[in-house]
């Protein structure tokens, strides 16, 4: 009993610690990639290749003055950053990040909570994530931030539909909402080959859900200066950033889990190799996730931002019908072929 609780606590600590560390180095990687794409160096002063830059940044935001605007709505203004960060961290709880090991006389799955409605849980939690952005934008009592909050609320509702519908094809193929079942059903054949259209829709919608370029209408620097977090400074600002980048990590992990076989390794059955197999599965998961993290950065420095009407057009008139057609086709395929 006690050992079970200890295992769960250790898993939670590993996941949260892993996400926070990845966020720190993701920000550094973003600046390095930006430098590379724009033919300059990027940060290289703090430590070797700038590797200590995240620590310097963290200390800097901690020491900065925390300003609250005079006309802001205090309670919600202070709560909003936490409302962004918490859902971002909780979502990862159901994502399996490895095959699991046998230790202490029991099977330890590399996943914090193995619940039977994993996919629904993810959609439920990500749909709450919008509150922090919307309320943060409203409570700052600033026109720009209010516009950012409004934009993000409309954007997130619109793209959630396409996001959910694109996954249903996979659920039809797998017959289960558990993420581990979905991963195991992909041994030998990744879902991306079975559901290429769904993958494209999911990829686009997930970029919109995480408020990243080319869909960062909520915080577009050029028109809204910084959008919903314009008034935030110091540690609250870095909590917004932590939330945003944690969302990116969870989204990449989700893409890998749903479409690229999760922790499975192509052509190798990792469950046969004991601890080394488990290690290999975690590495496989990390490498795939890392690729999609890189894709996020790559897209950011390559594509320009959508206009707002283009964004709505894409979401409602292109992605939604496409997702419905894909669902229809998949259902017909399963029934008749």
């Amino acid at each position, binding site marked *: 009993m006690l050992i079970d609780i200890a295992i769960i606590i250790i898993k939670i600590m590993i996941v949260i610690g892993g996400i926070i560390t990845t966020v720190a180095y993701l920000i550094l990687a973003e600046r390095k990639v930006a430098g590379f794409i724009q033919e300059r160096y990027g940060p290289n002063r703090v430590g070797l290749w700038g590797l200590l830059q995240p620590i310097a940044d963290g200390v800097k935001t901690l020491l900065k003055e925390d300003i609250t605007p005079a006309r802001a709505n205090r309670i919600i203004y202070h709560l909003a950053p936490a409302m962004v960060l918490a859902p971002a961290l909780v979502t990862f709880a159901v994502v399996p990040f490895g095959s699991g090991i046998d230790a202490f006389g029991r099977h330890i799955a590399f996943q914090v909570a193995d619940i039977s409605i994993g996919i629904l849980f993810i*959609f439920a939690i990500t749909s*709450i994530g919008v*509150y922090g952005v919307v*309320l943060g934008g409203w409570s700052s009592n600033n026109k720009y931030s209010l516009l950012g909050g409004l934009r993000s609320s409309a954007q997130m509702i619109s793209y959630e539909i396409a996001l959910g519908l694109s996954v249903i094809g996979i659920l039809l193929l797998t017959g289960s909402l558990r993420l581990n079942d979905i991963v195991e059903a992909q041994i030998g054949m990744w879902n991306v080959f079975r559901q290429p259209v769904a993958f494209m829709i999911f990829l686009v919608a997930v970029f919109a859900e995480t408020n990243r370029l080319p869909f960062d209408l909520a915080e577009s620097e050029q028109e809204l200066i910084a959008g919903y977090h314009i008034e935030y400074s110091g540690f609250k600002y870095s909590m917004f950033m932590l939330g945003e980048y944690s969302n990116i990590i969870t989204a990449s992990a989700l893409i890998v889990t749903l479409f690229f076989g999760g922790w499975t390794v192509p052509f190798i059955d990792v469950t046969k190799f004991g601890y080394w197999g488990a290690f290999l599965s975690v590495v496989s998961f990390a490498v795939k996730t890392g690729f999609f993290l890189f894709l996020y950065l790559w897209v950011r420095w390559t594509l320009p931002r959508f206009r707002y009407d283009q964004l709505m057009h894409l979401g409602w008139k292109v992605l939604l019908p496409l997702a419905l057609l894909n669902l229809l086709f998949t259902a017909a395929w399963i029934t008749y072929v």
Partner: protein
Amino acid sequence: MTESLFFIFAAMAIVSALMVILNRNPIYSAVSLVITLFSLAGIFLLLEAYFLAVVQIIVYAGAIMVLFLFVIMLLNPGKEAKFLSPKNPRIFIITLLSMAFIGMIITLVSGSVNYIGEAASSTGDLGTTRNIGLTLFTKYLLPFEIASLLLLVALVGAVLMTKRHLR
């Protein structure tokens, strides 16, 4: 365990529901309603309605309440005038009506305790996704299709109504 959880969720739901109707700032009302809906999702979990608990969060907290917040922020109505003063003639009628309603329910429930009887023994998988889906797509297929039609009509209606220039 279930009982104490029920009381926690119920207290949370009632208190935040009161906040919904007593706050003068509509944004606070909306946030309180979100808390109510979350506690209700918890109560659904206690009643073995697992699928509906998650749907409650996705549909109500994730979509409907965001829509409410969107409209509140769009219209920016500001605070309502004080309504909880003795000068407001409605307040007595409302209190009376609500009390009468609660009294009615209490009489009804306490009178019918003998008929309610013990709860059926739990099979543990009452409200799982599988069971809901099986029932929905066999016994209730026609209502399900009609519901989808209703949603389509609502979609078209909402778009039409918010168009500025109707030609």
